[in-house]
């Protein structure tokens, strides 16, 4: 073994001579660049917050802050859903329509069948599970590329949910086809999901925070998360390290479907009726938020806290600009600018390569 010890000593010595390459000998400009990438996005969020708070007295009140957090909840949760599929190198395009499906399932359960609020919650979650399993089946078993499979599923859900209601939105007390009045209505306990409080914290904000913490813990502290990141980095290398790639890819889509249905649950509780168009616009926003999240703290990979921060930033910008008298039709432009600024941080300024390559 003495041969080995001298070997190690020799390699240590040559490691020292290579130190600059290893990252200890960064130049000042590189250090500045790294901190800009790492903290720039958080700084932008804080600066915007302070600016709005200083110029609009109503902005930094507790009511307004809770409104902003509530506004971020659905986007953040749907962002988490997309994020899980991005971690395994895919992209779930069906989350918006899954959220829409949740809206409709909840409304049908309570209004058409006159069942309780808790029953509606169970039905909604089961709906998300079924969509997740369908995606997993198409991607893992049928080997259809992620983007294409979820694109197909997105259209199928969007269309299929119109069929039983003949394209009509569902509301309490609506007239049915046979002329009678719908037997049920949105129950009070169901509406509490969006409007209730635990202590002084709104329920949707609590759900959002719990899910973010859970997602962060699973992804960065457990073997499940490690394995999912491995699949995103190199599926073949993961397979040859003994990872059951198919199972974990499928799992990511099931998690995505479940999270999307939770997002839909808050959404339907908020609007209080079975709007056929609900959820359809949330897909791109969720993808954007998850992408913004990759740039936070210079992570360069999808992560839970980044996704939350992305959703918060969008909410802050929208609330602030609305208070400044910006009309609703400026909102998409504002969101787009936020996304582009975030992408500048992760792709343009960063010295580190960002790995985002959805399988097609």
């Amino acid at each position, binding site marked *: 073994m003495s*041969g*080995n010890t*001298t*070997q*190690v000593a*020799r*390699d240590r010595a*040559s*490691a020292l001579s*290579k*130190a*600059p*390459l*290893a*990252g*200890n*000998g960064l*130049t000042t400009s*590189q250090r500045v660049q790294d901190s800009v990438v790492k903290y720039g996005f958080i700084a932008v969020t804080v600066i915007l917050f302070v600016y709005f708070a200083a110029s609009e007295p109503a902005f930094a009140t507790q009511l307004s802050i809770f409104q902003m957090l509530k506004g971020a909840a659905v986007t953040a949760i749907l962002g988490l859903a997309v994020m899980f599929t991005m971690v395994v190198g895919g992209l779930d395009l069906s989350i918006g329509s899954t959220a829409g499906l949740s809206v409709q399932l909840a409304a049908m359960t309570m209004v058409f069948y006159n069942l309780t609020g808790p029953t509606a919650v169970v039905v909604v979650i089961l709906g998300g599970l079924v969509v997740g399993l369908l995606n997993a089946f198409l991607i893992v078993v049928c080997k259809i590329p992620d983007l294409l499979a979820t694109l197909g599923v997105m259209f199928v859900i969007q269309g299929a949910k119109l069929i039983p209601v003949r394209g009509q939105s569902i509301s309490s007390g609506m007239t049915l086809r046979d002329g009678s009045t719908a037997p049920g209505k949105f129950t009070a306990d169901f509406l509490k999901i969006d409007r209730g409080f635990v202590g002084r914290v709104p329920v949707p904000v609590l759900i959002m925070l719990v899910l973010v913490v859970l997602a962060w813990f699973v992804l960065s*502290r*457990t*073997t*499940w998360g*490690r*394995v999912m990141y*491995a699949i995103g*980095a*190199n599926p*073949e*290398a*993961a*397979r*040859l*390290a*003994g*990872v*059951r790639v198919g199972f974990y890819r499928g799992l990511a889509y099931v998690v995505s479907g479940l999270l999307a249905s939770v997002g839909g649950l808050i959404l339907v509780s908020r609007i209080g009726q079975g709007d056929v168009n609900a959820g359809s616009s949330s897909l791109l926003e969720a993808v954007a938020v998850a992408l913004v999240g990759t740039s936070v703290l210079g992570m*360069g*990979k999808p992560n839970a806290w980044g996704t939350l921060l992305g959703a918060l930033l969008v909410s802050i910008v929208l609330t602030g600009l609305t208070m400044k008298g910006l009309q609703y039709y400026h909102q998409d432009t504002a969101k787009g600018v936020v996304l582009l600024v975030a992408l500048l941080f992760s792709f343009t300024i960063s010295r*580190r*390569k960002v*790995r985002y390559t959805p399988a097609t």
Partner: protein
Amino acid sequence: MDDEVVTDPAAAPAPAAEVLNLDDITMAFGGNQVLKGVTVALTAGRVTALLGANGAGKSTLIKVLAGVYPDHGGTVRVGGEPVQMTSPLAAARHGIQTVHQRIDENIVPGLTVAENLVFEEIIRGELPPVRSLRRLLPRAREIADTLDLGWPDSVLTKDVFELGIADSQLLLLARALSQRPRVLVLDEPTSTLSAAEVDRLFALIRRLRSEGVAVLYVTHRLSEVRELADEVVVLRDGRISSSQVAPFDMAAVVRAMLTESVLVQSHELVEQRGHDVAVRLQGVQLLSRCAPIDLELRYGEVTGVVGLIGAGKSELARGVFGADRLRTGSMTFDGRPYRPRHSKDAVRKGIYLVPEDRAAEAMLPGWSLAWTATLPFLGQISRGRVISAAKENRIGREVLEHFGVVATSAAQAVDALSGGNQQKVVVGRWMRAAPRVLLLDEPFRGVDIGARRDISSQAHEQAASGACVVVLSSDVEEIRGVADRIVVLVEGEVRLDRYTSEIDDEAIVTSMSEVA
């Protein structure tokens, strides 16, 4: 045969004109000085071999020549005139063509073979990009014929993706030659070729030499240097450590490549013979059209499986590891039936594989040494699925220290390490975890001699402590250097199975060249 004549300097066309001069070339990345003043002259009608361990600066020097690094220091002169190597196109304009080692970066999938052959001309606008394939064919045929590839139109109109790795390499070579270069740079051109293809390549290089082309030939293989080169230049740590004109003093060449401590370490391996069978294959058909084979892999010895490309080596390794299903037949492990459905089944039993293609099959971009080392053994670093960072780092450091990986810490990204050190990580992570059966598929490919010796001696230690170690390679010398027992595979069938001391190189090579 007439090798003596070929390597005789007097045979080179007189007068020997220096076509390309590299004067005091330097290149740094950040604070890391990779080239520290390299001066080389390439002469018309001569083959100059460039040798060097991994990380010595070979790749960087080649890329300077190919116009990839315009901000290098020093001067490049072509025919005596200083030139600016600002881009690959500029290099091509000065008559310098490079065939890089990585094929996938240089062919265009989705285009046909013919379109790839005339690609340079399409880029330069000499051939319009939108044009019927039929009208490209004559020029493509011409280019293919310079190499006597003998590809019929049915091959030329195929998608280039359907070509094998060796044919793709020949395609790139043909494409480089179609530009009638004055200087041809070949970066490890034989690493993917079979023996017959190597012969064809060497014949071609000799022809080019007689036509007055200056060839820079980068390789790890000394046998090729002896056979082909007129001059040899050795790089070590960014400087020229030796340059010789044929006939060469090979011992001096090897010394120039290595630092002293590695040489001191080298020792004769004592042959070990195992008795207990670890894995027994019965009636296993490795390739689609070959007879089924029986084979025993035993504990306590290093079995070297040698065969040309396509002989079924990787199929054997991947089959035992459960990465691919066997076509036919059965296996036993420790005497019990063994049917892995997935690599996970093999890993659980202590059967490990280091795959052939490190970049595509083992590396995780951006992952640290500790993460890479622990991925197959997440159960060991976690409790109830929750990962312990301390255990993870401990295992990372174990791999780093025990295998002498040159890295600042276990948190360093593996893809920032040199090729040899990357290989030590992907081999070391399995060796640390008490392998029962360790399959190493081409573990020495693109690895410098120092790392090669480390991996060899570690493989031997594993076998000495009772593991069944299998090394698969197409290089007879490599296998002889590491294996106690040699199994020769030819087209999916076992042609020879002997202990190393019982046979000589000649017998191995003869059996490898016997085709049914």
